[in-house]
């Protein structure tokens, strides 16, 4: 009997011993060492990685009414079983922002076992990326608030500054408690002196897949859909469909009526009902899946009837018939898309005629409604963008993928549509991928944020994203559905082998929450939407004063991205935000200060600015000239040389009791490549064998002085491979000009194109023989100001090896491979370095 007891005793002891080792919780009573660092909100700190060497305090700058975040990175030296982080109140003198203005989230990690398909950026390693943000209280109640020794645990802190908060610099702290140990993290918050627009001006159409809500929330009812819809509104995102049952016209209109006045609602789709149709007019396939046009007409009529001219429910409505028109160019369905759009047009005209007959449009009173019916945007997605000769269903609402805006030429196509009053949207679904902006997990977070800035800068009306709640594995089917996820929080690859694609949210139900949880990416998207509003507000303020905002926008864009390539530089990004905030503050102040124009001319910059005529503007280290006084404003000009490593416009504006400062970082040093005023200057440029160069003295083809005439010639090598590879070009040496090539960020030249419009690109040549080619730029007939900023897409090492740049064209061969020539006149070639804050 004793033996038996002893036997079981041994068994029990060993069971416990093996179990502790297996689960490995690492108990210990000694004082916990924890390294604590802080990060901004566009940085992804991987869980298993080196200790993050960030800041020592949480630093946030934001406008009143804005939400902005930061991160605290915890890294204990032993396993932590329980931790929590709490926020304290913020104080600035006697002003207080309550602790409740903070939301604290524990970051959850999702592992990328394979890099998102086709992403080549080596700076995006495989690993455990932070994504799900679990509100701290749910992290605690859900028992996930533990940290493995020697790993990073991110805590995301989000602050919404009250609209009534006083501007200023606030201090506060966070308290980290871990297994009985307490740590403090200081917080420093700058509240700008303006209220961010609470109205969202960027249209969005992000799809909530109602059917699969149940996979995460155990609920796919309309009530849960509405919860998700409302949750997205907090992120300044509009779901495609308003909360209403499918096909319920009354419900849809009631919902439109209820949400129309919500400032966060900028757009909503008009729901459609599918219908199989026989229509011989569509000869390719008379039997086809279409929509119930009668139902659509009924919905639009109901919207119109619920509207007034002052409160036009149609003004935020659009068509998006995703089930029948989806990537029509990719699916070879342009003809069908056109057919459908024509039927929508017929339907709209019928409806207007009916309403006319009923006396709905009362003389001059409801013209706006009539126009709205006849001009509803038709969001129609396409993959490749508009190509020459493309059959388009509509130009009002055309929605190419984001990377279809990559070249100057492509953007010009859409700009022309916008100039005609059409809406242009863009969208992402699986594509694009890095280096273009994406919402993928293994991409730079900042690109998701800057996408909204790009949207505003390029005038893109709306942003469409295909799925926010992919609680399903779209990669694999399981019978009539897709496979369920092994885990709702940690599976990154859910669609098309692109990590993070198809979802931006996480279900709250498994943690006992009746609301979903955001992702780090969703927070970033909201931040971008708010950045959009900064630009919108500046634009509005400038327009009120009759000041052109374009040069400020150009300068801002230039600091953040080139074309559709972001520069991934977070310090540049935050300096731009600070600059925009300051410009908004200055223009809203009694000084009404605004920058009218910024023009880089050779090695100088010429800045025109204006202010209320009673304001006193004082420049630091520069002289100003009064240009004009009109309409109560004084306009000044200043010209200064870009001779310093950092060049900035520094000024003070004083008006009455108001004093405001501006430090507008412009650039680094400028250097002349050549002005081509003498034959000797031609020695520094090269052209290939068949091409020629000569000094041009005809002033018609020179901006000032002389220029270089380059006759570029195509060449037939007798085989397609070489013919395609050859790019006639003119090469300029850019090293040895007094600018460290690794700081080079802009090449400019005046180029006269003596022929039809043609696409050129810049080749950036390195000492190791490698060459990078920029996206195409359209050379229009006549003079062109060529500005190329795309140096940042090269790695730091590659930038250090830059030797020369080439203005290149594609091989000049006609259809029979006969070579022809193109004459260019080039003047004033300069390079510019980036300053410390580009």
């Amino acid at each position, binding site marked *: 009997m004793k033996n038996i007891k002893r036997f079981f005793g041994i068994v029990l002891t060993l069971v416990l011993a093996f179990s502790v080792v297996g689960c490995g919780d690492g108990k210990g009573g000694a004082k916990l060492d924890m390294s604590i660092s802080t990060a901004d909100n566009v940085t992804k700190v991987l869980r298993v990685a080196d200790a993050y060497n960030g800041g020592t305090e949480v630093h946030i700058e934001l406008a009143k009414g804005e939400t902005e975040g930061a991160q605290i990175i915890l890294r204990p030296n032993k396993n932590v079983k329980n931790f929590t982080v709490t926020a304290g109140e913020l104080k600035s003198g006697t002003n207080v922002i309550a602790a409740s203005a903070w939301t604290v989230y524990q970051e959850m990690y999702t592992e990328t076992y394979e890099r998102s398909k086709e992403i080549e950026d080596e700076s995006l390693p495989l690993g455990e990326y932070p994504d799900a943000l679990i509100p701290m209280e749910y992290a605690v109640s859900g028992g996930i608030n533990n940290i493995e020794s020697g790993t990073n645990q991110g805590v995301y802190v989000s602050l919404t500054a009250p609209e009534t908060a006083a501007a200023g610099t606030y201090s506060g702290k966070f308290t980290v408690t871990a297994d009985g140990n307490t740590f403090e993290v200081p917080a420093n918050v700058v509240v700008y002196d303006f209220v961010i627009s609470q109205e969202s001006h960027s249209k969005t159409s992000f799809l909530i897949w109602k059917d699969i809500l149940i996979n995460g929330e155990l609920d796919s009812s309309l009530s849960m859909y509405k919860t998700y819809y409302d949750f997205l509104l907090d992120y300044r995102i509009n779901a495609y469909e308003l909360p209403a049952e499918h096909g319920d016209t009354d419900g849809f209109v009631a919902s439109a009526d209820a949400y129309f006045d919500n400032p966060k609602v900028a757009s909503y789709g008009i729901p459609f009902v599918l*219908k199989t149709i026989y229509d011989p007019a569509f000869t390719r396939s008379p039997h086809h899946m279409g929509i119930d046009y009668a139902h659509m007409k009924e919905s639009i009529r109901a919207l119109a009837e619920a509207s007034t001219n002052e409160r036009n429910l149609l003004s935020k409505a659009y068509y998006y018939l995703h089930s029948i028109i989806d990537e029509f160019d990719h699916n070879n369905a342009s003809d069908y898309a056109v057919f459908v759009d024509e039927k929508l047009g017929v339907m709209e005209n019928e409806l207007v005629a009916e309403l006319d007959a009923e006396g709905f449009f009362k003389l001059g009173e409801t013209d706006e409604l009539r126009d709205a019916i006849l001009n509803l945007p038709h969001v129609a997605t396409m993959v490749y963008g508009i190509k020459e000769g493309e059959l388009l269903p509509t130009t009002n609402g055309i929605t190419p993928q984001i990377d279809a805006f990559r070249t100057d030429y492509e953007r010009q196509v859409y700009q022309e549509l916008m100039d005609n009053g059409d809406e242009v949207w863009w969208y992402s679904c699986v594509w694009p991928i890095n280096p273009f902006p994406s919402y993928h997990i293994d991409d730079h977070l900042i690109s998701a944020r800057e996408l909204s800035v790009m949207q505003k800068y390029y005038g893109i009306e709306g942003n469409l994203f295909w799925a926010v709640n992919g609680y399903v594995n779209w990669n694999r089917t399981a019978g009539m559905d897709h496979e369920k996820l092994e885990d709702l929080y940690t599976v990154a690859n859910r669609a098309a082998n692109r990590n993070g694609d198809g979802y931006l949210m996480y279900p709250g139900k498994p943690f006992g929450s009746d609301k979903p949880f955001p992702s780090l990416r969703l927070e970033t998207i909201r931040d971008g939407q708010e950045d959009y509003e900064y630009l919108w507000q500046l634009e509005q303020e400038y327009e009120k004063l009759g000041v052109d905002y374009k040069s400020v926008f150009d300068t801002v864009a230039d600091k953040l991205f080139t074309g559709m390539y972001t520069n991934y530089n977070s310090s540049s990004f935050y300096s731009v935000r600070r600059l925009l905030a300051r410009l908004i503050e200055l223009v809203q102040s009694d000084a009404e200060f605004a920058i009218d124009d910024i023009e880089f001319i050779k090695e100088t910059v010429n800045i025109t600015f204006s202010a209320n005529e009673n304001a006193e503007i004082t420049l630091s280290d520069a002289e100003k000239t009064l240009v004009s006084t009109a309409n109560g404003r004084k306009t000044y000009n200043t010209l200064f040389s870009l001779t310093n490593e950092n060049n900035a416009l520094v000024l003070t504006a004083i008006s009455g009791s108001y004093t405001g400062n501006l430090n507008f970082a412009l650039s680094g040093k400028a250097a002349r490549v050549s002005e081509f005023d003498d034959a000797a200057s031609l020695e520094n440029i090269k052209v290939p064998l068949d091409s020629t160069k000569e000094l041009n003295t005809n002033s018609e083809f020179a901006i000032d002085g002389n220029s270089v005439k380059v006759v570029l010639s195509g060449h037939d090598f007798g085989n397609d491979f070489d013919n395609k590879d050859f790019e006639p070009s003119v090469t300029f040496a850019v090293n040895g000009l007094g600018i460290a090539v690794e700081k080079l960020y802009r090449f400019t030249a005046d180029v006269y194109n003596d022929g039809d419009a043609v696409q050129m690109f810049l080749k950036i040549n390195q000492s190791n023989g490698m060459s990078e080619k920029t996206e195409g730029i359209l050379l229009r007939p006549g003079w062109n100001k060529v500005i190329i900023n795309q140096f940042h897409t090269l790695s730091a090492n590659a930038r250090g090896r830059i030797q020369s740049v080439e203005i290149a064209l594609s091989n000049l061969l006609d259809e029979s491979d006969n070579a022809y020539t193109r004459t260019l006149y080039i003047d004033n070639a300069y390079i510019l370095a980036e300053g410390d804050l580009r």
Partner: protein
Amino acid sequence: MKKCIKIAFLLAAVLSLTVFFAACGKGGAEVIDPNLMAGFETEKEIYQTGFINNFGKIEHSDKHVTQGKYSLKAEVHGRLNVIYSQYERFNNPAMVIASENYIFSKTDFSDVGKVSFDVYADDDKDSEIVLFVEGSGVEMVESIAEVGRTTLKANTANNVTFAFSRESVGSKIKLDMIRRFYIAFEGRSSIDDEPMTYYIDNVRIETTTVAVKSTAKTSKPGELCFFDDPDDIYRVFATGADAMCSSRLSINYDLKYVSQGSGSLRIDIPRHSSRTGTEGAIDQTGIRLLRSLFENRDWSDYDANEYSFTFDVYNPSNEPLAVEMQFYSGNKVVYHGITVAPNSWSDKNLTKMPLSAIKQNFVEVEAMDMILFRIPQTPHSSEAPFRTVYIDNISVVSNNT
């Protein structure tokens, strides 16, 4: 004693590994009862259960429990205004129970005689429920077969037990490759309907030792399907409708509607339930022939210039009936349509489809992988909710016949 210690170490290792995997690992099925497919006892089990077609809302409940401590409360919504066009799919709200799940693991159902579950229908009206099974089809594609359907009595604890007809299911799906079961509910038919509430529990199988009856059949020369044998019902599939509105297939022995032999196929096609019918509506229903009926045939016996497909259709209504035969090979399809006069058999001269016409499109008749009969759905009529059609004598005949 040394032996005891060794055993102790061994036991300890085994037990500790068990503890480890239970605590830390995702692990496999936690089988409570080998015949219990779903008991809804844990949240994990509920999350593993699928719910499709805008199912509605689900939660744990301690009401109407028939097994364990909990049942599953389901507030069933369902899709509205859907198009019933997807081949062999249904659009009704359904819960999906995988044959390999958290508490159950079985893919070979060749020894299963019954499937049952308990449903408390917490509503004032009766409703229909259908059990489907899905797995690797005998024709190499994932297929679905209906196990059974029944009416749930309102405000009643219903025990639903379906005989698992291995002959019927096995004619479409490999019995040893069953992957999931679908319990399909009616869902709402209009926006004004309140969602129905059910409590579901104790989904289980019952095994049997009775051998599966063979349904293999060798076609006679020329015959594809004569519908004389009751098992011929397993040689056709109803297509193009949702679960609750699918065509009902049965073998008819009323000789008035038989063109050869002793039986014919009766198809009761529901008139369209959700809309009133509009111009050119092509919502179609119909049947598909089991591929093995024509795939296994030695077509070298049939000279394409001398033989034709043919079939007979009886239209017992007072309105003309359009029927279209569709021959598929991959993306290619050959159509052959006829109109059958009211209360008449089809004209034999019109129903013939020369093999040469198919050959022109497919290269060879052997490449054919699907034969469908399509019949347009017609608007809903409260007087006659179904439209009935009879098909018989699907065969290959000489052009001279």
